[in-house]
Each structure stands twice: as structure tokens, then as C-alpha cells.
């Protein structure tokens, strides 16, 4: 049996009296697309935050490629191959679309202490950035200032920036949040493409997208995983239907 690439062991986190991660254990296998679903406030974003190192868990461990990264700083994790995207678009608003992504490429590749030479005209960085932009369908907007993008375009940029870090495990927090039908369809196609090449942890409310993409699904309710299984089994699971899917269908 292969070892999990990302292993969550007895993770717990509370904000005051509110328990948002409740003794959660979960293994993410290499190459899988693992969806995490659950109602609003279930603790999905908080979990991504702890995996990316932005939030410190109260207890438990996170193992990445076999090593304990629970105490690894957030800014070190992308260099190990673990990167995230944000539910609420979180780009560099004053930078151009291209520079947002080129900066991600630069940080990933290193040489960040170089103080000579204009970074903006470095073709190797810009070419790699363009590749990511082409991939998410944003190439024509490369010169646009990020803050002026439409919502759907910002979502695409959000993903391009995470992609530019070339992570082996990509944590995606609701990549389709607030996008239109067409954009969602394009995003699903793109994620399907990505799923073939790297491990994805996908937090998503769009059930159609989740069932189209996921190899396995974990249902999170109140910070606990009430089920982890294949999409078909999850669809058939009575607890899940009661706790989550039922509400969603109504």
C-alpha cells in the first residue's frame, strides 16, 4: 500500500468555545482528488488554514510526505510542495495579472535576494507565468491591473498563482465560489486536467463539480469527518444525506 502524501492526525482547533476542528484524522493519498464538503461553518477553511500553516492547530499533527510539518512556518510549506488558493480572492491588487503570477514563479524558483536587474522584464519568469495564465484562460488579461479584473477572472488568477508554485499537493478553497455557469464549467475542465498531474484537496460547495472531480470525498460537519468514501458511497450514505446533501437538494 502506498503511504499518504498528506496526513492529518488528531487535529484540533477551537476559536474560544467554538470547536472548528474536532480531533480530525484524514489521509490524502498521492495523486487523488480529495474533496472536502460540508455546510457553512463546518471548518473547511480553517482546516485549509492549518494545513497551509497560516493557523496553528491546538493539538494534533500534520504530516507531509512522511515528515511532521505541524511546526513548519507557513512561508516554508510552498517550498516543500504544498500550496493553497483562497476562498476569498487574495491577490496582489496593484500588480498586473502577469506580475502576480511571475512573482509566484520567482518566489518558487528562488534568487529572491537579487537586487540588480529588472524583475519585470525577465523572460524566463514571464514565460512561465504566461504558461499558467494560458492554462487558466487569462492570457489576454496579462497586462491588466489585478484589482480591475471581473470576479471570475480573479478566481482564475487565484488559481494561476497557486499553480505557478508547482505544488505536488494543491489545497483549493472553493475555486468556483461565486463564478458563473460558464466559468464553473471551464474551471471543472481545468481541475480535471490538473487532477491527472498532482494531488488536489478540493473544498467546494458545488456538488456537481465535486462529484465530477473527486476520487474520494470527506464530509465535514462541526469540525468532524462524518464520512470519507468514494463519491458513489457518499451519495448513498444516509448520515450524509441527512446532515448535508438533503439540505442542499432542498
Amino acid at each position, binding site marked *: 500500500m502506498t503511504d499518504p502524501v498528506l496526513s492529518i492526525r488528531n487535529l484540533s482547533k477551537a476559536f474560544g468555545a467554538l470547536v472548528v476542528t474536532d480531533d480530525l484524522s484524514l489521509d490524502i493519498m498521492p495523486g487523488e482528488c480529495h474533496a472536502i464538503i460540508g455546510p457553512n461553518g463546518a471548518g473547511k477553511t480553517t482546516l485549509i488554514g492549518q494545513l*497551509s500553516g497560516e493557523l496553528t492547530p491546538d493539538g494534533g499533527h500534520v504530516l507531509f510526505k512522511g515528515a511532521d510539518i505541524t511546526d513548519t512556518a507557513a*512561508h516554508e510549506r510552498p517550498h516543500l510542495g504544498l500550496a*493553497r488558493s483562497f476562498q476569498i480572492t487574495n491577490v496582489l491588487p496593484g500588480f498586473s495579472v502577469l506580475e502576480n503570477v511571475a512573482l509566484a514563479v520567482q518566489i518558487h524558483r528562488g534568487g529572491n535576494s537579487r537586487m540588480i536587474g529588472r524583475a519585470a522584464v525577465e523572460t524566463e519568469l514571464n514565460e512561465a507565468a504566461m504558461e499558467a495564465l494560458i492554462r487558466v484562460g487569462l492570457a489576454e488579461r496579462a497586462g491588466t491591473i489585478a484589482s480591475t479584473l471581473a470576479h471570475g477572472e480573479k478566481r482564475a488568477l487565484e488559481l494561476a498563482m497557486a499553480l505557478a508554485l508547482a505544488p505536488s499537493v494543491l489545497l483549493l478553497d472553493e475555486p468556483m465560489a461565486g463564478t458563473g455557469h460558464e466559468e464553473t464549467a471551464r474551471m471543472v475542465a481545468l481541475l480535471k486536467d490538473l487532477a491527472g498531474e498532482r494531488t488536489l484537496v478540493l473544498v467546494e460547495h458545488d456538488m456537481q463539480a465535486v462529484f465530477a472531480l473527486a476520487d474520494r470525498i470527506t464530509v465535514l460537519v462541526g469540525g468532524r469527518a462524518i464520512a470519507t468514501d468514494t463519491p458513489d458511497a457518499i451519495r448513498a450514505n444516509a448520515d450524509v444525506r441527512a446532515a448535508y446533501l438533503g439540505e442542499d437538494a432542498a
Partner: protein
Amino acid sequence: MAEAAAPAATDRLGPRIVVPAIIFSVLIAFPVMADLANASWLMTLATRMMIFAIAVVSLDLILGYGAMVSFGHAAFVGIGAYAVGILASHGMNDAALSFPVAIVAAALFAAVTGAICLRTRGVYFIMITLAFGQMAFFTATSLSAYGGDDGLTLWTRNTLFGTGLFADRLIFYYVVLAVLLAAYLICRSIVGSRFGRVLRGCKENERRMIAMGADPFRFRLVAYVIAGMIAGVSGALLANHAEFVSPAYMTWQRSGEFIIMAVLGGIGTLHGAILGAAAFLALEEILSHWTIHWRMIFGPLLILIVYFAPGGLSALLRSIGRND
């Protein structure tokens, strides 16, 4: 003028090069013009402006590109000045020694205080840089061996490898100008470089930069130390210019003036720092000749300028350039 269209890089590059080129051309030609106008006393003022401009350019590096509102920048200037003064009082009078010492002393102070200040954000950062600035100030006033409150008179300007170059007013003017140009070019190079892009990114969105794998603290600290070193050079020049060193060089008021100069010229432009320092000292000079109550006019005037020209003098120049 199409506002909605993306302002292409070329559109912005124009004024970026033209305005600094004009500024430095004027500074190069200034001694000749002052001579022709029979106003060679202006040379002293212009030299002082450039010395201040060096400090403000360095402040703009961290303020305009790193969002670090340092309220203790005068401390670096003071440390640079005291390095020259203290060495001179022990008979070590060559710039080849005192300038490197000034730079290293300012760098050490910046590294130690920066490592602490940069753990904080926003108002706390401002307050802590202010506190360290005041510490440097009170330390200077307590140096009784070096004049304490009264400061320290230099009996002569620094020699440079044994030559008396600094003593010549015209040569010293051009030495200061060369340092200003070097400071400007160094900072210009930094902000456009890979390092500078990370620094600017941290100003834009710190959280995202961390998620992409950059540690903002490291980049900010390096920028802070570089800014401190440049300000230290400005202090070493100031000591030579005034032939005097005093705790007054590092008061919090002086730090505040540096911020005002940066804002007045337009932060995040570098050349704006030069305009800001020049405008500030020129206004101070004119108003103080006119009335002893000049500060009552100076304050409101600064507020009006900043209010009606947000983005400072450099933005004003840019909009004039665009309307043509």
C-alpha cells in the same frame, strides 16, 4: 485620455525617467546658475537639501515600497554624523575611515532595532521606531565626552585619502550630488529587482506573499538595514557640511520632517523624495526670512499641498506632463 485602458508599462516609464533626469540635470548645472545669478550662498542651501534628500530617498525605499512608516529615521542620520564627529575628536579625520564606520554603525543599529520593530505592525511599528529614535537621541545627549546636549564642533572637514577635497565648497557640492545620485540609483535598482518585487508584494498583500512562500520579515529587515546605511551616509555628510554634530540631528521632529518631505514629494517614487526635501527646505528658508511666526504658516501650507496634490509633487509634475 483613455483612463479605462490599462496604463501600459511604457506610459509609466516616460515620466519615471524624464523627471529624475531633469532633477539631476538641474542639480549638476546648479552651481553654474548660482554663480551667474551671483547667489553663491544658495550653494550651501542646495548642498543641505541634497544631504536631506539622501536620507529621504532611503526613507522612501522602506516607506513607499515596504509600507514601513519609520518615525525614527533621524537616528540613522545622527549615528552617521556622530561616527564622523567622534572619530574626528580622536584625531581620525579621514573619510576613508569615518564614512565606512558611519555606514556600519547605522547598519548595526538598523539590524538590531529593525529585528524588533518589524515584529510589529501599523501604529505599533511607528511607536517603536519612535522609541528607538528617542533612545538614540538621549544617548547622544548623555555623551558628555562628546559635547552632550551642546553637540560637538568639527575643527575641519574630513580629508579624503589625505586630500582636502571636502573643504572646497564646490567639490563638496559635487561629492554630495554624487552620493545622492548613487543612493537614488541603488534604491531604483532595488525596487525594480527581484528583491524589490517581493518587498512590494509584501506591501500589497502580506498574507498572500506568505502563502506563496516568502517571509516578509526577512525582506523588510534587509530593506530597513539598507535604508539605515544610506541615511547614515547622509549623516556623515551632514556632519561635514555643518562642521558640527548635535543631538538635534536625531530628534523625533526631524524624523517627522523626513516623513513630511517624503509625502510632500510623493512616496513610492524615489525622485519625489528629492523634490520633497528641496521644497521643504526652500519653504522653510523663505518663510523664516519673512516672519518669525513662519511655522504657523508652514504647517497649514504643507497640509494644503498634500490635500490638493495627493501623491505629492511628483504626481503634480506627472499630471502636468500628461496634459501636454
